[in-house]
């Protein structure tokens, strides 16, 4: 007698996941493995594509390269500033939008616009804003009687301008998630705070802020990752300049891989960037995320 053979739940789950697994292999694992393979070679494009195995020489070359350390420092500075600005702006927008006021729905819809603009377009816009010749800050300065130019794309402020532009682009998304969090806070908690005669800051700190902590943690991680891998905005706003002042790791990798065609060296540097991204998020989880889970 023939028996009906049933597959286990685990096998069924694996079977159902196969398309996703194949997709991930295709879009993540294969490029990653190929990049690693390239990083072990000297790649030459002229006279046909040629690969020469050189082991881990490219990795050693990266850590002995002065431009790598400069770019690493720029990336970290830009990421820290971006993250702080993004979260502060996002929180501020969320708090404002949580209050009742006229045309609230319209303004709530408009506030998402920066996030929907391409980073390429953002870069061009912020370059116009920051440039002394055409910039917003020059216009404001002139409004108050100044007659000089305020150039924010110079060596002193270009990273801050990049961070501000990046925060302008990302903060609406943060704001919307925080706003949805705020809307779940029971109104009676605020009533109780009123009974306790809490000040506005005390209400924010003791009632509003605690439920937002996990969302803020998640968006800190997201903003760090997005800032570390940001390229197109920097490319259009400053091209890593003036000189190499705003040249982040992504910009250095782009130059090495796609301008100088040093694909092996560029791939090796991109793995350091990957370590930085994974390392910084793991560290954040270790220091902050675990406490929130408890």
């Amino acid at each position: 007698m023939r028996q009906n053979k049933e597959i286990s739940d685990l096998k069924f789950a694996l079977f159902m996941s196969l398309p996703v697994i194949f997709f991930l292999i295709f879009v993540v694992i294969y490029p990653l493995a190929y990049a690693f393979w390239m990083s072990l070679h000297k790649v030459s494009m002229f006279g046909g594509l040629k690969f020469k195995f050189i082991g881990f020489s490219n990795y050693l070359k990266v850590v002995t390269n002065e431009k790598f350390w400069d770019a690493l420092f720029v990336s970290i500075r830009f990421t820290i500033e971006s993250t702080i600005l993004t979260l502060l702006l996002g929180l501020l927008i969320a708090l404002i939008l949580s209050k009742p006021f006229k045309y609230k729905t319209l303004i709530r819809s408009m506030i998402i616009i920066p996030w929907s603009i391409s980073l390429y377009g953002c870069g061009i816009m912020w370059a116009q804003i920051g440039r002394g010749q055409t910039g917003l800050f020059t216009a404001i300065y002139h409004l108050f009687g100044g007659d000089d130019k305020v150039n924010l794309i110079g060596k002193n402020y270009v990273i801050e301008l990049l961070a501000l532009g990046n925060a302008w682009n990302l903060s609406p998304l943060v704001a919307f998630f925080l706003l949805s969090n705020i809307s779940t806070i029971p109104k009676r908690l605020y009533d109780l705070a009123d009974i306790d005669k809490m000040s506005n800051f005390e209400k924010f700190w003791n009632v509003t802020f605690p439920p937002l902590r996990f969302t803020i943690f998640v968006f800190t991680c997201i903003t760090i990752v997005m800032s570390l891998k940001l390229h197109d905005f920097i490319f259009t706003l400053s091209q890593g300049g003036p000189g190499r002042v705003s040249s982040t790791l992504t910009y250095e990798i782009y130059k090495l891989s796609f301008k100088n065609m040093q694909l092996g060296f560029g791939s090796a540097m991109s793995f350091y960037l990957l370590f930085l991204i994974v390392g910084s998020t793991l560290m954040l989880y270790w220091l902050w995320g675990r406490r929130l889970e408890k």
Partner: protein
Amino acid sequence: MMKLLFTLIFSFVSIGYVHASELAAESGEDVFFRGWQYRTDIVQSNIDRYNNEMGGNVDYATVTGDYPAIMEQNLMSGGDLDIFYANPSQASRYFDGGWVKPANELPNFDEIKADMYPAMLDAWTYKGKLLGLSYFVSTRGTMHVNLQKLEEIGMSESDLPKNWDELYDSIYKMKDAGVKYPYLPHWFSEWYGISWAYVWEVMNRGGLVADPDTHQPMLTADGPGGDALRDWKRVWNDGLIPEEVLTYNESSYMEAFKSGEYVISPQQIYDLASFNDPANSKIAGHVSLLPYQGQSWGVLDSAVYVMSNRDRSDALESDVEKMASWYGYKDQNGEPFVGANWLNVSMLFSGYKSVMESPDAKSTIQNALARPEDYETVLEVYKNTPYPKGVWSVTWAPIFNSWLKETMTEFLLEDKSVEDTVNAINDKINELNDEYGIGG
């Protein structure tokens, strides 16, 4: 008499027909034509004319972003690209990569060659092959002068400099006369900005960055290369140059000069037309240029229409050649239509005698200038402009341009020494020569 007239008309129509049939597209396949963003309206109207009159299927689009790198990747991957713009420095690299079909393979190559000025033929010929057909020719670094501003500060044309040393001295006099930033240098943040400014200043002062034949480095700290750097450092450290020029793109750079704030600035020679156009400029009618007085100004900047050598059917290959010839040389009526159009609309010079020596060329150029007498000055400056074969007609040219941009900017921002910078440039050239197996 009627018979003669009929014969003449018939012959004329026949010649036109022969030209038309020789240049008409036949494959029915798309020809992919790509370029950077400059007067896309004019390009599209030229393409439309070709498609309508020659039955072509030319697909035109512009490339935004890092043009040289994007084109290189396109060529490398054998993507949809048949004819494209390139500077000779890029085209040399693409040729060495094996991605370019030289113009020598065009059926009418001999006619094209005979019509080309020898200087341009030399600049666009690499390893014995003509890289492409003339798009434009210009002197980048022509010293433009805002005569109105000059007059405002009580100076006259006789006070203007004759060479680079005098130029830097005159900046101080202009500053003393009350102009905060008299000079807008070509130090903007494109791969052809500050890097090319250095290359041409070295050449204008009588030096060379690299040998034109062997591509070995030629700079010395006590030669023209060092002199240029010392002058740059002097005016930079004395606060005579606005820092933001280092972050401009080319259009911001032009806009800055159009604002009327500066007295003197090295610009493209063809931009005299734009600066003197009242619809475009606050200083229209007041922009002239420094003449050639024993020292050249600027460098010969040009672009060519290059054919890729990707795999194509025979019929499409023939269509690409026809389109390149029609667009890059003469149309079905035997006229250099596109070249003449560029001269007329934007004062873009051509590499062809048939364009530059046409009866209309002189009046077209004169109409674009502030003063009729500037016409002779323009021709004289143009005639004496050098071409840096040592660093442009070589495989590593695009890489060197980008590297030099950063190096020169860092020299100013980080106050690096002249000796270290000269040595760094020579070392980089040696490194690139080693990497590409040049000269050794």
